């Protein structure tokens, strides 16, 4: 239990530090498309699944926690913990220039525990659902003055966004029998976004000016999932996995206010906005897929998701609602576990994963869909003394287009997930 407490403490501390640092003015740059709506949707799958371009709804590992499908929690045998960090680089370019942003982040963390070993499990997790981290910067000029004494002043206008939608979730998974599992999770969604605007005037006597739109909201959400396991389907020791989840739509009770700082940050003033309260409607999300393992060494998976973003409504940004379209994503991946052969070869000690995904995106701007094509590769490093492991994934993707004066982003991402299991973690002795 001491180790469990230590791990939880480290995860919470790491998250807190990251939260604090995210308030830094330089800590808010990611995808430029995250300025639209309530941020860009994030993958909620763990590094192992992301290494294959998959979601993780149709497969799971005994010693790796997952939040992809609540039904997986019914198969929990050992206490599991997951913590994730990542770094992404976005090289964005349009017809006029380019910009590179780097973004270090602490992602999801999860505790998954068995109640009845291998039959009933519980999961608690914290997961970022959308991310709004962007910075736009424009040099401008403006002629100010009267008929007799006008002057052209140069200034720059910076818009920074930070925050997004997060989810705290608690759920149960039940393995009904050796073939079918189901799960349910209740969650609290909470939105916290800052959209800051600063105009800086190099020339005296013009003062730098600012305002910040703070948007917050919360609501409850529900998620159900099922997982069907069909062993020995085509051959002995093979397995077909079929999984599906549904996230029910969420309507956030959101509010916002405008703030601004003066006197070098010493005083914050708040202004009530005319349209200060309103709903933000998030769409239904359906994900599903199949995986096939001819043996315990190989697995191939094909998964996809649908999100009905065309039904997205945001009273605070009504002009953006028309940009949202239904989102589809498909992924195909494969994993290879050579260590199960007992080979002593060094390279046989790792888990190998690779895959690709195509995401139509949830945005359609000026007739152009902001789609994302990603390729991923990952390795899993097993602990020599326990069943814990570290999954490392590297991915490269292309998002958007330069057509219609839009932005194309080349995305490099490295993600690391710490999977804690068994003796290093919590193992129910009564089972």
């Amino acid at each position, binding site marked *: 239990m001491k180790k469990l407490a230590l791990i939880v403490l480290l995860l919470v501390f790491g998250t807190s530090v990251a939260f604090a640092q995210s308030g830094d003015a330089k800590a808010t740059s990611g995808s430029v498309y995250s300025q639209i709506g309530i941020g860009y949707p994030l993958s909620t799958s763990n590094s192992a699944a992301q290494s294959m371009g998959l979601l993780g709804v149709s497969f799971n590992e005994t010693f790796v926690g997952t939040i992809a499908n609540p039904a997986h929690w019914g198969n929990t045998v050992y206490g599991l913990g997951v913590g994730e960090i990542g770094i992404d680089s976005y090289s964005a370019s349009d017809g006029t220039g380019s*910009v590179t942003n780097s973004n270090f982040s602490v992602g999801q963390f999860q505790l998954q525990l068995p109640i009845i070993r291998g039959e009933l499990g519980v999961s608690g997790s914290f997961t970022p659902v959308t991310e709004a981290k962007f910075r736009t910067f424009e040099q401008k000029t403006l002629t100010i003055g009267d008929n007799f004494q006008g002057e052209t002043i140069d200034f720059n206008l910076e818009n920074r966004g930070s925050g997004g939608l997060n989810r705290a979730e608690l759920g149960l998974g039940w393995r009904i029998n050796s073939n079918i599992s189901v799960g349910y999770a209740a969650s609290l969604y909470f939105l916290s976004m800052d959209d800051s605007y600063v105009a800086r005037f190099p020339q005296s006597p013009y003062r730098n000016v600012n305002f910040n739109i703070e948007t917050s909201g919360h609501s409850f959400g529900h998620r159900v999932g099922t997982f069907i396991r069909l062993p020995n389907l085509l051959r002995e020791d093979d397995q077909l996995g079929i999984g599906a989840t549904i996230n029910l739509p969420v309507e956030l009770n959101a509010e916002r206010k405008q703030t601004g700082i003066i006197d070098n940050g010493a005083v914050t003033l708040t202004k009530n906005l005319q349209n200060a309260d309103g709903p933000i409607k998030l769409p239904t999300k359906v994900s599903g897929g199949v995986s096939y393992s001819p043996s315990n060494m190989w697995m191939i998976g094909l998964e996809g998701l649908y999100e009905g973003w065309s039904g997205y409504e945001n009273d605070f940004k009504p002009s953006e609602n028309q940009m949202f379209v239904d989102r589809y994503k498909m992924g195909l991946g494969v994993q290879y576990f050579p260590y199960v052969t007992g080979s002593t070869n060094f390279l046989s000690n790792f888990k190998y994963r690779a895959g690709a995904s195509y995401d139509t995106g949830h945005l359609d701007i000026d007739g152009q869909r902001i789609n994302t094509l990603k390729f991923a590769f990952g390795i899993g490093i097993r602990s020599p003394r326990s069943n814990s492991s570290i999954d490392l994934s590297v991915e490269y993707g292309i998002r958007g287009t330069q057509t219609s*004066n839009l932005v194309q982003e080349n995305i490099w991402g490295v993600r690391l997930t710490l999977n804690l299991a068994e003796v290093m973690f919590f193992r129910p002795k009564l089972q």
Partner: protein
Amino acid sequence: MVGLSACENPGSVGGDLTDPTSEVVQDTLIINGLTSVDATSYSGELDLFSAGSFDDPLFGSMDVTGYLKPNLPASSDTLKEEGEVLLRIMYNSEQVSGDTAGTQQFDLYQINQFWRDRVLKVDNELSLGQKLGEFSVGTEDSLMINLSDIAPQWVDEYRMYADSSKQDTTGAVDSAYVYDAHGLALVPQNSAKIIPLYRDSTRFFIQHPEADTFDVPLNRWGYYLDRGTNSSIPQISIPLHSTYESVLNFKSLGIEELDIQPPGLSRAELVLYENTPALEQSLVGEPSTTQRAKEQVAYLHLANPEGLPENIDPGAPLNNPTRLQGSYSAENGTFRFDVTRLVENIIRNGFPEDREFFITLPNDGVIKSTLIMTDDDQVPDGLKPKIIITSLKNIKN
């Protein structure tokens, strides 16, 4: 997702993916209700004091009598029987109003009543006694007037106070000098120019062939202005006098009409336009060497109108009014005030009760006047007094 980010080479990429939310805008508000208020102020104990006469075609004739009274010599100095008393006049030649090349003639009179320069107002005329002598001021900016030659009686009286004061240990003589000796008046005799005398450089000198020369500073100084009624102020303008005979008054900046938050306020500038054509044309028939004293600054006061002129006094104004200095631009004939902080305070704390705005020229003893365009319908909008506000706005709300 939470964490750290860093940004290299920030640019405008992605800046126009959505409709802009913020914009830097300029709002221009006409100042309505600009009027003139008579708050005739004080003329004594200022840095300078004026004397002379100028028949201004625009602002009317001005006869200015200068008043001055010397201190008694220091205890270490002795005004001997053969000693001569001279008055050195030094004035600011750049701030002369009238014909700078002309000769201004003065009669020297003895003042015949007790006066205190601290409470002497511009329109307070002192009772004068007998004429003591006369002198004239030409193009030079300083001159010595031998009072022993032109006003020997006054010198004898002054010597008596000086001698008695050295021998008196009770203070009675000094007191008598304060209350019974009243000084001199410089009364203009022709209408050539008004000269602003430096109060610290205008001094009395005592010369003696067998002793060191010493000087005595002024004890009191001030002036009286008699302005004629023959002014011809254009209807679209209001005169602004450094004497506060006419100060500008308005009640509101009109910023209540704007939706501006203090953090979004970059700059607020109050602009007043001088009626430069009228000022220049009025001197067309005068000698080419004729000018008006010109001021380079003006003050904006936010003060209680019940306490004028003390509330807008340049020395120690009452009731802690707000005072901002504006600068004059000769290039375009405007007075411009940076009122950013003032506007911010009004937005944050509301407009203070019982306060109004007043605009003055500095009352430093130099008589200066100008003409300011009003918000009259006949004035083009471009020349009406206005406030120009530059701010960052949330244009979606």
